[in-house]
């Protein structure tokens, strides 16, 4: 079968398109920047190797225009966040946490996400985002029950406006859309911020969530932390897109590409996106380009799939140091203030350690309490069975002990 040669009609005069056809939105404003948006180190940083140095580069950092109180707050949270990650990982080695997916290196996105939200807004974290939850103000012990192993969700989602940490990837994103949609129907000033990883963007639920959000113009912001890997799988086996932010165009929402280690740029971009959502402008997709410095979890061996040099290159672009350097240069921080923050972070870590070192209380009898509003007769029977078994076990143990001591 013959294939007609290209007739070059792209340049020919256009006839009327088919009836009723019209572009739904102008794609141009939806497209992300060509490179990750940055604010920190912008004035100071050397130009791209090979590129000509722009003479006109202003010497004043954009951070100088930001609210110093915000900058200090961001810094304090980054320092505490870094310490939190280290502490939680250490606790896995002592068997106090079953597993911990660290965000060392990704603190900027975690902190920016938490701090940019208003009190009534909802956060939809993935399993990796315990730091964002803690930075939002949720008790770390309640946040960590999932990873400690004593409970699934330890905090009250309504009281904290934080959805349960989602282990099944991206499948919590439609929940964020539904909640945001419901809030808007109710006329409430509520935005949902939903987080997932680069790997998560491949899931069907990511697609469905973004599409629903755009069609419904729901007040929801999607924050994708592109940390380069889904466990061992690097981004280039995950997507061929120019950037993950480019996916936004296909849903008709703006995409923003941001340096994910630049907490200030993230805070600004997320803030804009939330503001747009809040004022009826619909959803935004934000890609934060960052890096997971630790292994996937404490149980993972990252040396199987990546080189030390890569990790080192990213260490040089550390989110905490990036802000620290800038704030030192701007005179917003000095060594003393830095030490004070580190001290506070140590105290926080010590408190966490102490509380996690105590044995968790568990409630086997509650296994049947929350399957349904009221246990079915069937579950009531099973609860009774377990009660009897545990009683017999306890009696048996007491008996054994008696025998032991009797000997």
């Amino acid at each position, binding site marked *: 079968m013959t294939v007609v040669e290209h007739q070059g009609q792209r340049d020919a005069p256009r006839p009327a398109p088919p009836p009723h056809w019209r572009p739904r939105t102008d794609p141009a404003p939806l497209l992300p920047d060509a490179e990750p948006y940055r604010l920190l180190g912008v004035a100071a940083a050397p130009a791209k190797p090979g590129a000509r140095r722009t003479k006109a580069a202003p010497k004043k950092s954009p951070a100088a225009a930001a609210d110093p109180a915000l900058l200090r707050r961001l810094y304090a949270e980054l320092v505490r966040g870094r310490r939190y990650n280290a502490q939680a990982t250490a606790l896995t080695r002592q068997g106090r946490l079953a597993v911990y997916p660290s965000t060392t290196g990704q603190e900027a996105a975690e902190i920016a996400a938490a701090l940019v939200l208003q009190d009534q807004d909802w956060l939809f974290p993935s399993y990796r985002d315990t730091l964002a939850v803690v930075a939002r103000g949720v008790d770390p012990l309640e946040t960590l029950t999932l990873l400690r192993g004593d409970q699934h969700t330890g905090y009250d989602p309504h009281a904290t406006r934080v959805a349960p940490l989602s282990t099944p990837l991206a499948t919590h994103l439609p*929940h964020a859309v539904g909640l945001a949609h419901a809030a808007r129907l109710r006329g409430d000033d509520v935005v949902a911020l939903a987080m997932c990883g680069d790997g998560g963007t491949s899931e069907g639920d990511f697609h469905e969530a973004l599409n629903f959000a755009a069609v419904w113009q729901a007040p929801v912001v999607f924050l994708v932390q592109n940390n380069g890997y889904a466990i061992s799988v690097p981004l280039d086996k995950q997507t061929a897109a120019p950037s993950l932010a480019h996916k936004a165009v296909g849903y008709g929402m703006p995409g923003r590409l941001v340096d994910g280690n630049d907490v200030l740029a993230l805070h600004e971009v997320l803030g804009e996106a939330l503001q747009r959502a809040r004022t009826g402008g619909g959803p935004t997709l934000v890609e934060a380009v960052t890096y997971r410095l630790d292994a996937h979890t404490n149980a993972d061996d990252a040396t199987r799939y990546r080189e030390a040099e890569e990790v080192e290159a990213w260490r040089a672009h550390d989110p905490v140091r990036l802000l620290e350097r800038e704030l030192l240069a701007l005179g917003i921080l000095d060594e003393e203030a830095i030490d004070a923050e580190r001290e506070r972070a140590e105290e926080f870590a010590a408190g966490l350690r102490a509380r996690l070192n105590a044995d968790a209380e568990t409630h086997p009898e509650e296994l049947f309490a929350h399957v349904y*509003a009221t246990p079915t*007769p*069937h579950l009531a029977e099973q609860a009774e069975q377990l009660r009897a078994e545990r009683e017999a076990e306890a009696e048996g143990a007491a008996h054994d002990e008696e025998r032991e001591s009797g000997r």
Partner: protein
Amino acid sequence: MTTATTVTSTPAAGAPKPTTMAAALNRALRDAMTEDPAVHVLGEDVGTLGGVFRVTDGLAAEFGDQRCLDTPLAEAGILGAAVGMAMYGLRPVVEMQFDAFAYPAFEQVVSHVAKMRNRTAGRLPLPLTIRIPYGGGIGGVEHHSDSSEIYYMATPGLHVVTPATVADAYGLLRAAIASDDPVVLMEPKRLYWSKADWSPESPGTVEPIGRAVVRRPGRSATLLTYGPSLPVCLEAAEAAVAEGWDLEVVDLRSLVPFDDETVAASVRRTGRAVVVHEAQGFAGPGGEIAARVTERCFHHLEAPVLRVTGFDIPFPPPMLERHHLPGVDRILDAVARLQWEAER
């Protein structure tokens, strides 16, 4: 928005009138939406079209297109969004267009809908109803006739109910929407156009979830059934009279929770039982039902509990479905195998 809708088949309150199951379901949605502004209906084609089975007919006109919302075509997205809506205090009612088209939402059902209350120690209940038209008998092409109830029954955290009568269609849907737990309402497609004299005020119109009911008392053996197979069982019971059997017919209505009491009482009385359903036999609902009846009635049983079910095959093409679906003869054959010799 006035109430002058296009739902002509739904009777006004008052005297019972011939009503289809589809109309009773429609009325249940309408009444629930009227009583509680938190009730929202969403799904594919539920708005302007009124659903491919017209169960949501007129709702968008009456309550607006946000209360009865046409969604994009994506089942996981629909159910996932409904989860978020329920988290915020709404009472979403989701329509899945056909049984097999609910499968793309399976992850949402199992890992989120069924578990959310449990995962949050009761703090995030999901008052959410999933309506799924199911089963064969309407000459549907492949993927339009699955009996998928077992997948939901096997998932702790869900209630699973299925009406076989016009009154129960109304009652179970109202009860599902009123429930603070997620309820999967399996709607027997081939009974959508079945009719009965009914009005929303008819006695017994709203039953609590979890109760089976004896539809026909009998002494010889019990037919345990539900949904689309109830009319077949009642027909079989009539035909059995000629053979000298007086069959009791129990309509389970609620598969989860399961009404052990009603079922066991019947089987203890009759000493024999056959489970009848359209779903495949192997690892189908009948396995559980037979096993739990046997656990509870072992010493009353004259014969093993038998099962008359769809074969263990993918649902056949329309022209062959009659060979697959349990019919009167197949039920009577099973009854005949209930070891009557022991009796005589």
